[in-house]
């Protein structure tokens, strides 16, 4: 009997299981396969801070959400159409998010009395009416995998560890995706352990075939590729990977070699890991003894003429504070990547927040200005990393690039840049002793970069205030005033090389929503839908450059009756804008739950503001 295939335009699936169940691998495989089919997609991995929280408990639930579509999308979706729950805890933590009438696939093999106890459940939610209103597909995946792998040389425990590929196979069947890319991936991943490759491949096939054999689903679905996608070459990319590639590209566009001094910290570590693989690009990565050494080696490398870079998250940025001041004083190029997470202190290390903006702007002793760039999406992270390199090299300054955990671990299709059209910004290592002095300045107010090894340019720099032009130590009051102003004006001058951002939506409207960083998708999606479906008078302005702020914002703000600033913090950009543009009023809308905004939250807030309820 053939099973009907229904076309859907937009699907959200959430895989949820124990943190040892391989949900992130499952999600990433589904993502890669889906990307190759030409769907637009966005993902949201959501995992606990503990590598292996107590098995079966609510604290140990790891999730991976993917949204894929036949049209352009901006977020990983608010409401899953399908929830895959590998155990009782995963079900109870996630089922309320599922769309009414949505599909819940539950692995009954992990709903035993013991599993229910560990999930702190008194009754079995598969039987007690909890899931009324959902289409529940109950399958004993443990038993199915054990059957499929009869005769396997693996232990029964290792056999059960293949169950995520069984589920993946089933989801491939349900959404008409090919299993071949994952079969190939498994063969490569377990090239040295063929018995593991074989077992997981068998589980994947068994899951896929079970769709036809067991007839648990009335129908299958397909989500056709995006038709009006911009022509070009695409690949799937995660944010941290994009930052790594952007730094390599930025260094090459500057004609420099990249140096990364870093210390492992969630969620930034992947950048160090990616760059550690790229030795053939001349990239040097030093995993140092602490965050401070990470940035200090980078400063030392920039001093020696490389493009120094350091990667971290909020707590690490705090530790690097004093060294950033040194880079500002010595006016050396440096890129500092902060992949933000929820804080303060250790906070929620695997959850998202955008609360390091004010730390980036002001978190140093004295007046210590530096440029700040923030990325909006995983693909945008590449461009922003290149931009951070450009500013650092052209202006001889440390630059902070703000990413966050949602971007770092999220994925989307990346329309690859035309390599010949990437901007080049060759760095100049001066060599001519005639007229050289370390603190002369060019038209951008940048000082010359003279690196050790250059004959005739021997000079001294350091953290003590420098005399204008000569760079000698100076305690002169007037000189300190002058140098403070020069440092400020140099950074403000970056405005001359950044565009005024374009507003999405009408030139004039009742409301302008201003955002930065990873809230881009939720705001863009929320505002577009309100305009399209309810003819709401609302526009969206996204800021990539947070310091200096680009020219032209005052004129933009003046065209809207109200301005709303949603942020994953307690009010940071709104505070900055209120201080810089006191003639306008900026209404803060904050969320600090360790989760991104949903487009629905943005829509509801906009509606409330426009109705005067907020």
């Amino acid at each position, binding site marked *: 009997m053939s099973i009907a295939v229904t076309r859907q335009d937009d699907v959200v699936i959430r895989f949820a299981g124990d943190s040892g169940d391989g949900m992130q691998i499952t999600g990433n495989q589904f993502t890669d396969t889906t990307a190759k089919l030409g769907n637009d997609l966005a993902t949201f991995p959501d995992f606990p801070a503990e590598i292996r929280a107590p098995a079966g408990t609510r604290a140990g639930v790891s999730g991976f959400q993917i949204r894929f579509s036949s049209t352009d999308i901006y977020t990983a979706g608010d409401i899953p159409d399908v929830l895959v729950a590998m155990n009782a805890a995963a079900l109870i933590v996630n089922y309320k998010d599922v769309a009414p009438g949505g599909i819940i696939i539950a692995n009954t093999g992990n709903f035993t009395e013991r599993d229910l106890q560990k999930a702190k459940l008194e009754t079995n939610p598969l039987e007690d009416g909890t899931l009324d209103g959902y289409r529940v597909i109950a399958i004993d995946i443990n038993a199915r995998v054990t059957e499929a792998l009869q005769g396997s040389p693996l232990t029964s425990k290792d056999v059960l560890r293949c169950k995520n590929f069984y589920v993946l196979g089933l989801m491939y069947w349900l959404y008409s995706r090919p299993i071949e890319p994952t079969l190939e991936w498994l063969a490569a991943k377990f090239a040295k352990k063929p018995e593991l490759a074989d077992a997981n491949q068998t589980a994947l096939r068994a899951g896929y075939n079970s769709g036809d054999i067991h007839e648990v689903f009335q129908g299958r679905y397909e989500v056709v590729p995006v038709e009006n996608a911009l022509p070009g*070459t695409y690949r799937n990319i995660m944010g941290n990977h994009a930052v790594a590639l952007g730094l390599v590209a930025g260094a090459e566009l500057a004609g420099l070699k990249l140096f990364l001094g870093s210390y492992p910290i969630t969620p930034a570590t992947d950048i160090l890991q990616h760059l550690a693989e790229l030795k053939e690009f001349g990239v040097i990565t030093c995993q140092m003894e602490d965050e401070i050494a990470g940035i200090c080696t980078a400063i030392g490398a920039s001093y020696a003429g490389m493009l120094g870079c350091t990667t971290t998250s909020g707590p690490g940025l705090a530790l690097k504070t004093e060294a950033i001041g*040194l880079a500002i004083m010595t006016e050396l190029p440096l890129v500092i990547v902060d992949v933000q997470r929820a804080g303060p202190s250790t906070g929620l290390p695997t959850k998202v927040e955008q609360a390091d903006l004010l730390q980036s702007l002001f978190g140093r002793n004295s007046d210590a200005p530096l440029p700040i760039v923030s990325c909006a999406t995983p693909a945008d992270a590449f461009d922003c990393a290149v931009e951070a390199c450009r500013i650092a090299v052209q202006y001889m300054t440390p630059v902070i690039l703000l990413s966050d955990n949602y971007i770092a671990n999220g994925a989307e299709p990346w329309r690859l840049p035309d390599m010949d059209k990437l901007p080049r910004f060759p760095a100049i290592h001066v060599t001519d002793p005639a007229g050289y002095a370390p603190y002369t300045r060019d038209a951008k107010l940048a000082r010359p970069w003279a690196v050790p090894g250059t004959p005739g340019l021997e000079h001294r720099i350091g953290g003590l205030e420098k005399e204008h032009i000569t760079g000698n130590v100076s305690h002169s009051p007037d000189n300190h005033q002058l140098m403070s102003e020069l440092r400020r004006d140099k950074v403000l001058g970056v405005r001359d090389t950044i565009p005024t951002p374009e507003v999405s939506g009408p030139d004039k409207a009742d409301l302008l929503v201003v955002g930065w960083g990873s809230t881009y998708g939720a705001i863009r999606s929320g505002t577009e839908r309100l305009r399209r479906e309810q003819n709401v008078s609302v526009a969206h302005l996204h800021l990539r450059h947070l310091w200096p702020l680009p020219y032209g914002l005052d004129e933009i703000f003046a065209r809207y009756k109200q301005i709303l600033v949603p942020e994953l913090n307690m009010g940071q950009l709104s505070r900055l804008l209120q201080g810089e543009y006191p003639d306008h009023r900026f209404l803060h809308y904050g969320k600090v739950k360790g989760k991104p905004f949903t487009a629905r939250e943005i829509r509801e807030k906009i509606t409330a503001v426009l109705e005067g309820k907020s």
Partner: protein
Amino acid sequence: MSAIQLTPKDLKSDQEVRWCPGCGDYAILNSTQAVLAEIGVPREKMAIISGIGCSSRFPYYMGCYGFHSIHGRAAAIAAGTKTANPDLSVWVVTGDGDAMSIGGNHLIHAMRRNVDLKILMFNNQIYGLTKGQYSPTSPAGLKTKTSPYGSVDLPFNPINLALGSGATFVARTVDTNPKHIKSILLAAAAHKGIAFVEIWQNCVIFNDGAWKEWSTKEARAERTIDLQPGQPLVFGKENEKGLRISGGEVEVVAAADADVWDPTTAAPLAYIMAYLDEREDLPHALGIFRQHDKPTYDGAVKAQVDALTAKKGKGDLEKLIYTKDAWRVG
């Protein structure tokens, strides 16, 4: 002898030296300038990197490249500079507070990694620039502005710390003996790998005479012993006494019966020599405690980059971005 001929004057900057009159730093500065003029490295390939403290003003007075950084971080900054350009001769100038207190972590890790840096640690057992507080090398009981009733801290033995951290060259010298400083710094410069040199240095203002029991010309003969590679462990006005190590203990013997010093040995003899600091009845050791050959960090980093580049070919950015799994639209 190398073709590069410099004079100490070439290593002086145009800046006025501003340490207190009588400070031990002057002798060290002059000796360092004399040594750097002799090591066959062109001036532009020398970088002196310091942290914070009296000693850390050093780079301003040197005629080569210099970086006066922030408190405790010189070793980390220097590690970045040396790794970025192994062709440079990179010297770190630091003090007991800068290196062993706020910068302790960077110091021990630079030593364990064997970054090819020359670290000169001026040890005056006091915080001078902040005007007289006890430091991590101050002896217990020292009365200072922050220990008016005597310090209750127990001090580091810098040589033992360096040995324990795996430094491949560990030596000690003293500001009252410029000739000895020169010989130690020349040996440090010749060593491929990290060189940790503790320099007993007198702070005339805040801790005057801290080393005088051992450092004056008269005291040195009787109360110190100079560890010189291949030389017998002898001391005394006429070099008439010697040391012999037996069963983990050190005994004073006639010069003819003294052990010959070998800093290259894997045996833990250097620790025993550092331990002499705690003995009132035995001389304290100066000279070269350890001299081991190990791969340098900066050399190994470069070797990996070179090997991978040779194996894979120079990285192609376009290929890195346009991967096999990319797909075309339109």
